């Protein structure tokens, strides 16, 4: 077959081009691209703030000492239940422990659980959806019925059933939350896979002789990755909420450990007198989830639409 590669002379790159129809748009230079990114961000201060919040939370999760050098479990009893001040940004709790330090150190446990939950949902749900969407027929039918059933049990109850079976603890809570959102991932992944599998360009690839599994790898996966990634980021926010709910109900790490949800549960007893015990960890959760959702929205085509 190599003869066809050299059958004709070198390609004529410009001579045969008749006028206007081949005028190509000029590709942007690196400088222009940088300028475009800056302008995009400049118009979206909210997105910039969201990215900074997520960055801070990540630092808190991996190097809590950098943001709050103190020990989260040691307090000065004389300083108990102090409102927020310069010395204690988020105030102190009933044992005189610094709430800010506890929130920062709590990020690690809460985020760990969230990451595990999203990973479980993404991997299991993604694979199920890919299988259903790509193989089709009875495999699709069977898997989607299972998904329907999972969706018909409210997520938090499914998580509670799993916790009943598995027991308490951060990791178990994480798995319970992850399993409960497998179904929605499977659904999105299936829909994306089907959409792309039936797209004209995949048929075109098949029509030029590309094998089925090659189209899966080269066309379906790369094109489905985007929407699924957006969902994963969105799910990250939901998982933070779900994990903190279960932790609030008392199914997470045992007491001295600072989890975001259990911090609020502790503060609940002092609600009438010390508002900051609940408000501050809650605001931290809200800020994190809001930021994650904002980033998810930006990923969901805002950039490509802005061009």
């Amino acid at each position: 077959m190599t003869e066809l590669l050299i059958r004709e002379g070198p390609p004529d790159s410009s001579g045969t081009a008749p006028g206007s129809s081949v005028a190509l748009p000029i590709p942007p230079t690196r400088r222009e691209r940088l300028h475009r990114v800056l302008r995009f961000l400049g118009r979206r201060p909210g997105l910039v703030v969201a990215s900074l919040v997520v960055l801070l939370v990540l630092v808190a999760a991996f190097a809590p000492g950098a943001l709050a050098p103190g020990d989260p479990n040691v307090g000065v009893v004389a300083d108990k239940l102090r409102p927020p001040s310069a010395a204690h940004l988020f105030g102190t709790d009933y044992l005189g422990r610094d709430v800010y330090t506890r929130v920062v150190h709590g990020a690690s446990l809460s985020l760990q659980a969230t990451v595990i939950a999203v990973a479980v949902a993404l991997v299991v749900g993604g694979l199920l959806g890919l299988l259903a969407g790509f193989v089709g027929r009875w495999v699709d039918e069977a898997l989607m019925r299972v998904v329907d059933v999972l969706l018909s049990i409210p997520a938090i109850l499914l998580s509670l059933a799993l916790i009943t079976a598995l027991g308490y603890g951060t990791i178990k809570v994480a798995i319970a939350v992850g399993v409960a959102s497998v179904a929605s991932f499977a659904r999105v992944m299936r829909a994306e896979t089907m959409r792309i599998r039936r797209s004209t360009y995949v048929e075109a690839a098949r029509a030029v002789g590309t094998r089925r599994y090659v189209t899966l790898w080269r066309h379906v996966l790369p094109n489905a990755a985007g929407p699924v990634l957006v969902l994963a980021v969105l799910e990250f926010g939901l998982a933070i909420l779900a994990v903190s709910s279960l932790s609030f109900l008392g199914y997470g790490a045992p007491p001295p450990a600072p989890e975001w949800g259990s911090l609020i549960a502790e503060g609940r007893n002092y609600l009438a007198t010390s508002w900051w015990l609940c408000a501050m960890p809650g605001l931290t959760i809200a800020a994190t989830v809001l930021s994650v959702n904002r980033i998810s929205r930006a990923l969901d085509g805002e950039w490509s639409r802005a061009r």
Partner: protein
Amino acid sequence: MNSILEVSGLDVGYRIAGGHIHAVRGASLTVREGEVVAVVGESGSGKSTLAQAVIGLLPGNGAIEGGSIRLGGSADTTELTALSEKAFRAVRGRRIGLVPQDPTVSLNPVQRVGVQVGEVLRVHGLADKRSARLKAVELLARAGLPDPEVRAGQYPHELSGGMRQRVLIAIAIAARPGLIIADEPTSALDATVQRRILDHLDALRAETGTAMLLITHDLGVAADRADRVVVMSGGRIVEEGPVDRILADPADPYTRTLVAAAPGLSAPPAPRIPPQPSGRPIVQVSGLTKDFPLPRLQGRRGVLRAVDEVSFDIARGETLALVGESGSGKSTTARLVLRLADPTAGEIRFDGADITRVKGRNWRELRRRAQLVYQNPYASLDPRFSVEEVVTEPLRAFGVGSPAERRARAAELVGRVALPASVLARRPVELSGGQRQRIAVARALALSPDLVVCDEPVSALDVSVQAQVLALLEELQTDQGLAYLFISHDLAVVRRIAHRVGVMREGRLLELRPTEELFTDPREDYTRELLGAIAGRRHATEAA
């Protein structure tokens, strides 16, 4: 005669992310009472924006930035640009009627059509609830809808596209406006339906002396229907004048290319000389039949016979065109020939070998020799691929050559379709429709096939770009002795490119004849009807 619409120095702009687009620049035009003025232009020329500005329905990010629009008429003259939203409401529907572009999506799907027609009368206080219902039936009858009483009680999804367009016409004429704006009123319909509906609209209009502003991309339609033509390009009006003058003696260079490219208007092209038959045909199809199962109705499962006992041959180096309206089975036939779908009955031979049931390896081998160019170049190219990846995909699939050789071959192929080699690094989204279709052709040629099936390859493109792509296809055929199976609904395009033409209707091949013979001496009534519906033809014959 008095003028009913006077647009002068109109500027319309759109606010978009990070900028501003000038869609219409300094446009001026006049429509006199009872007159039909066509605004012709390609996509992006600003013709639709102009229409939207006149009826006050610009999208939220669009605004009139200068100039004036005066709506006249026997009674009084209104400056539309100065009207409040509320005051404009009394104008829309009452003094200006709109026939929208796509009838399949322009009616409220959850409301009975009679109610939708009656609504115009009720908003403008021309009828109460009960009389609106009666008048709606009357209007539907006037719009040429059979059984108007029954139709009035039906939902849009129970009507065909052509019937829905008649409902929309009934809505437009209901309040007897002095001006109707028709925005590409029939481009979503089949040619024969299109012709009947436009004829009917013409008759209604002539009866009441209503003026019409006809927005169209098709110079042929404009030539057939309009008294005067306004040509738009890049937001400006480049030329304006009576139809005959514009067609016979276009002054602006852009109008000249448009007139030259409009397939129905120019003199019939010189018949293409078919290649000398040499050896056996590349494709032999006999008794080809395809059934699709229908959804179960009343407990019985019916089948839809999409292709019914179709037989034809394609010689090497020949272009065989299959024409027909939507649902005629022409695209299904093409997919069967390529074995992208399985036939129910019949036989397909490719270069002598029976491929009717080939599977697996042999099916894949067929891909080397028979290729497909799709209708929509926006959908048939993976948006994540670079052009080089697109063009070399067939080579990779069959493991042809080393990466370096493939790159060289890709450069050669894009050169063959008259694109510069620098295009290889681009992604499809960065290219225009015509450029993308060239890329799709280059991909089809990568394995040097014997047969290329072109499924409506130019119908998604602007007319001037269509002409270029057709010329390219002809040139490639001459160079490489390709055979084409060319699927199209557009007879003017087919006349230009095909050696032989087959007319399909409801799955059957009615007649298959050399192109010139078919066009000059059609045997079937249906073929005659199709030929009669070619836009621009009426004008061409009158002039002759």
